[in-house]
Structure formats: C-alpha cells, structure tokens
C-alpha cells in the first residue's frame, strides 16, 4: 500500500480502448476516473476494457464511478468490461455484492478475445 495516486494509462487493441489503472482508487481520484471514462464514452468509444491488475484497493467512491460509467456505456450502446480483478480488490467487489453489476473477465487476453 505504498502508492498514493491513481495512474490511468490508455492504449488500444484494434477497436478496443484499454484503460489500465494502477494504485488506489478513492474519493480523491474517483471523480478523475469517472470524468476520464465518461469522456471516452462520449467521444464515441464502443468497447472499453478497464484493467485492474495494478489496482491496490478501491473504496465506495470508486465503485460509484464505475457504476456511473456502466450506465453511461449502456446509454451509448457501448461495451464496458473489467478484467484482472484479483485478490483484495476482488474481495471488495464480492463484499459489496457488485461482482454481478459488471462484466468481469479473468485476464486482459480473455477480455480482448471476448470483446474482439
């Protein structure tokens, strides 16, 4: 738990926009994440993959940001999926009963195959 800030890196795999998150996601940076995801969706992205492999933990503010982005994706008929939700981060999704609220794939490769 050393890293303070959230690092958001974007890359592409064909038509899919990959958003790789690193660090912790809480109320200090959840707004930043929500804005970034919403701007991607409003710019016309139709497939967004959020990679959680480098996320240390997330709080309720982060879950809200992700749920808002999911709603926004539905409105834009875009696909919004998460991958590599592991360890303590996965436990938090389970605790919140939110595993079913998102489309989650085991790894980035698996998610890319499904989205492709």
């Amino acid at each position, binding site marked *: 738990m050393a890293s303070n800030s959230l690092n958001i890196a974007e890359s592409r795999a064909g038509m899919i926009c990959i958003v790789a998150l690193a660090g912790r996601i809480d109320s200090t940076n959840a707004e930043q994440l929500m804005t970034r995801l919403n701007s991607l969706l409003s710019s016309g992205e139709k497939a967004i993959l959020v990679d959680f492999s480098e996320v240390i933990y997330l709080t*309720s*503010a982060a879950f*809200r940001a992700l*749920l808002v982005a999911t*709603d926004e994706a539905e409105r834009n008929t875009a696909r919004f999926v998460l991958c590599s939700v592991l360890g303590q981060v996965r436990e938090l999704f389970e605790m*919140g009963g939110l595993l079913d609220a998102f489309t989650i794939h085991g790894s980035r490769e698996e998610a890319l195959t499904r989205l492709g």
Partner: protein
Amino acid sequence: MARPAGLVYAADETPPPLILLLSALQHVGVIAITLVYPIIIAREAGLSPKELLDVVSLSMFALGAATVLLSARSPISGANFLCPACYTAIYLGPSLFALRYGGLALVFGMTMVAGFTEIAIAPLLRRLRPMFPPEIAGLVIAVVGLSLAFLGARYSLGITSQHGIQPAYLAIAGSALATMIVLNIWTKGYTKLFCALIGMGVGFAASAMLGEFDMSVAIPPEGLEILRVPGFQHVSWRFDAVLIAPFLVAALASTLRLMGDVSTAQRLNDADWVRPSMRSLSGGVAGLGLASVFCGLVGVPGVNTSSQSMGLCSATGITSRALVYAIAIIYALMAFVPAVAVGFATMPPPVMGASLFFASLFIFTNGLQMMTARMLDSRKTIVIGTSFAMAVMADVYHDLFAGLPAVLQPVFGSSLVVGTVCAVLLNLVMRIGVRQRVSLRLAAGQIDREAVERFFSEQGARWAARRDIVNRATFGAVQVLEVLGDPPGGVEIEASFDEFNLEVRIRYVGTPLALPEHKPTPREIVANEDGERLLAGYLLRRSADRISSHTSGDRCEVHLHYDH
C-alpha cells in the same frame, strides 16, 4: 474462491455412481482401523462375545450417523464439507479411566457430557480462539500420541500385572508393525494408503500361526447369524462430576482436531483459502457434539473427524459431499452383518497394539509440527515446555499422584488432562501484557490517507501481523475517513494488536456512521452521494469481522475488529 488445480470433485459436485461407491469404500477402509478403540474399551469391560459384537456393530452404525452429522449442512450443525467420522485416541484415556471408576455406564454418560460441551462451545468458537492457539492444539495432539504409544507398546508386548513381555506377542506385533512401516515408506498408491489395514492382516495371520487368534472372544456359543439387529444390553448411562475434567479436555481436544480437519477440507476446495470459515467450523463442532451425544446414547465411545480421510481427499482430489451418504449407508449395512463385526472384534491384542503404536507415531509428530509451526517466543516456550513436562510427569510419576484425593485423580491421573489444563492456564497468565497499542492523530485539514496506509503498514510489520488482515484494516480506516471527510476536530486512529485480534478505533467529532445491514442497489449507489455512503457502510460491515459505531455527546467512535 478459486478452484484448486488438483481438485477433481468439489464439495458440491457429485461423481458418477461407480466412483462414488469406490471412493466411499476407500474412506470406510481407512476409518475402520479406528474401530480398535471401542474394541479395546469393550474388551477391558470384559463383555461377553455377544455384547462385544453388539459394541462393534453399533460402533459402525454410529460412524455412519456421525459422518452425516459432521458433514451435512443443516440449520443447527454440519461443516458443509466432506468430514468423515472416526473413533479417536482422544477419548480412549478418559473412557478407560471412567470404565475403571464406574463401568461402561459412566463411559457412555460422560461421552454424552462431552458432546453437550461441544454443542455449547460451537457458538463461542470465535471468542474462545485465543484460549487455544495452534501450539496448544499441537501440544494436546502430541500428548494424545504419546499416551497412545504407551498403550500400544503395552498391548504389543502383552504386559499386564501378571505378565512381563510375551515373546509371541512381540513377534506378532513386530511383524504387523514392520509391514505397516515398510508399505508406508517404500510403496506408493493403494498399498501405501492401506498399509495399516494390510499390516493388521499380516498380524492376524501371524496370530493364527502362533496360536494367539481366538475366535471365541467374539462368536457367541449359539453361532453367527447372517443378518442381525445389534442389541443394547450393555447400554446404560451414569454421570459423575468427578469425571468432568477428563471428558471436558477430551471435548476440547476433539474440537481442536476438528478445526484442523475442517480447515483442511475448506482449503482443498478453495485455492484462495486464507483463513477458516468460522460458520463452517461452528457447524462442524455442533455436529461433533451431536455425534458424541448420539454415540453415548447408543453405547459407543466418542468420535472425531478423520484426519486420515482428509489425507485421502487430498490424495484423490475427491471431496464430494455426496460421499457422506454413501459412507453412512455402507456403515449402516455393515452394522447388520455380524460376520463383518467378527472380523474386527477378534483382533488379537498384539495386532491392536501394533495399530495403536503405528497411529501414535503420526499423531505425535503431527502434534510436534503444530507446536513448532509458528515462531515460539519466551512466553510460548514456557507454556509448551512446562505443560509437556507436566504431561510426561503424570505418566512417569503415576504412583505418586495415586495418593491424591479422589476428586483430583481424573486430573492428575491423565497426562492429557494435566498437560491441557496446565497449557490453558499458563497461556491465560502469559497473555497478560501481550496487547500492544498505538495511535495516529490527524489534525483537521490534514487528513492524509497515505499517512494512514504507512501507519498500518509499519505497525503491521512491527507486530508481524498477517498481511491480508493489515490490508483489510487499512481499507477499513481509509473507507471510514472517506465517509467522514474532514471533521472539525480532526481524527484519532487507535490500533491495538494481540496474536488473535486487531482492533481499530477511529474517534472524531460529528455524526455517527450509518452501517446498513442490507446492500444498496447499483441504482441507489449511482443516484446520489447518500447511496455511496450506504455502500461505504455496507462495505465496512462486510470487510470487518465486527464493527460498531458509538456516540457520547458529539464524540463518535467507530470500532472495527479483525480476527487474526
């Protein structure tokens, strides 16, 4: 929860009928060896051949019922994992003591008392955990192994008050024990798995050759029927407060062993396993209590989970709960076939001795491993060293303790009781001053989450606390701070730790935290920030093992508790 690589059938999966039957038979074979314990008690009681057959048949029937009570989940009991029952050396010492003190009726009555004790312990398991750390569980298991080795040696050598070492017994026990050891060390597969059973077969053959195999001990004068309903003539019940101590210790020792076995069953089904599910453990202990009460009622000694069966589950990857019913049905059928009971009841004493001695080797070393698995500091060294020495002294200076008042005899007459009582009491004394407390003050306007993370990370390392627990506590504190925002008087975070508990108290001036029982819907969470606060409270409630929120005037305190 992730599926382990070697798992073939998980607890909720059902294998095809043939695999189900063969797997159940394997468990029955592994567990059947432990029928030696009720047979020893029945023989020491001097039962007639017919009554001996009844004890063996009822013992088999009780194993089936106990397996269901231990494993199948019901509203009141069951671990919800495959946990077959077996007879145990833990009850042997107290039962033999009760037999000498007041006959079989006292054995069965006090076995029921042990069962009721386990039922009472089940809901308190989490709170009692600090009293029975793994090193004390290990000590209990090691002492059980040690006393079993003494008993095994006595049976193997044929030593009684009238006889010294009997050469024929030595030859029989030696051949059986050598077979068990050779098969266990230098073979693989089924011969290794059933080394004890094969060794017993060799012992039977050697007994027949040396004229020590006596069928008349278990075959009634009127002969054997093909099918027979076992009788209850030997069954009655008596209770005596003097015997409470040894049976209480037996109940505790059984509970500790069950906790180890059920944890193994959980781990076999979950690659992400970090700590035992207390719900499953409590259900298992309640099932153990019901099983022991049932055993006392039908006139057989107390049972425990079968560690050997756990080994079998691990080796085969078959952990299906469907096996529970197959095992129960096989035992129920065997109970009505007297020929099967004769096979066990005619076991010659040196063969029993070899089996006991062989089992004691593994029980003793398992106990040693449990005792030394964690680093032993000075406190633990004193607890373990003193208690182990006391347990050995109870056996070595048996005559010295024989002069004590009758009420103290069951305590000082048993190495298991002396060792356990000594360990539990010393452990309680040594826990004085073990809790460490630190706090972090965050002034208003300076709520720094990185400082909170650093605080928990550094303290966790200093206390050698488990990483996953420290991470959960860090999340809890950060999540609370997130909901509180920036309270006017700042925030004080206090963390205290002992070996079993991590307590976090967060104090501030403001309104109490909402901790909803029900999870908010995604719609509620998205709708506004109140929904997010509800999710925060719900996450906190779920992530901590216990959480509460108190107010006193305008001062509030959130208390998060984590089991360690």
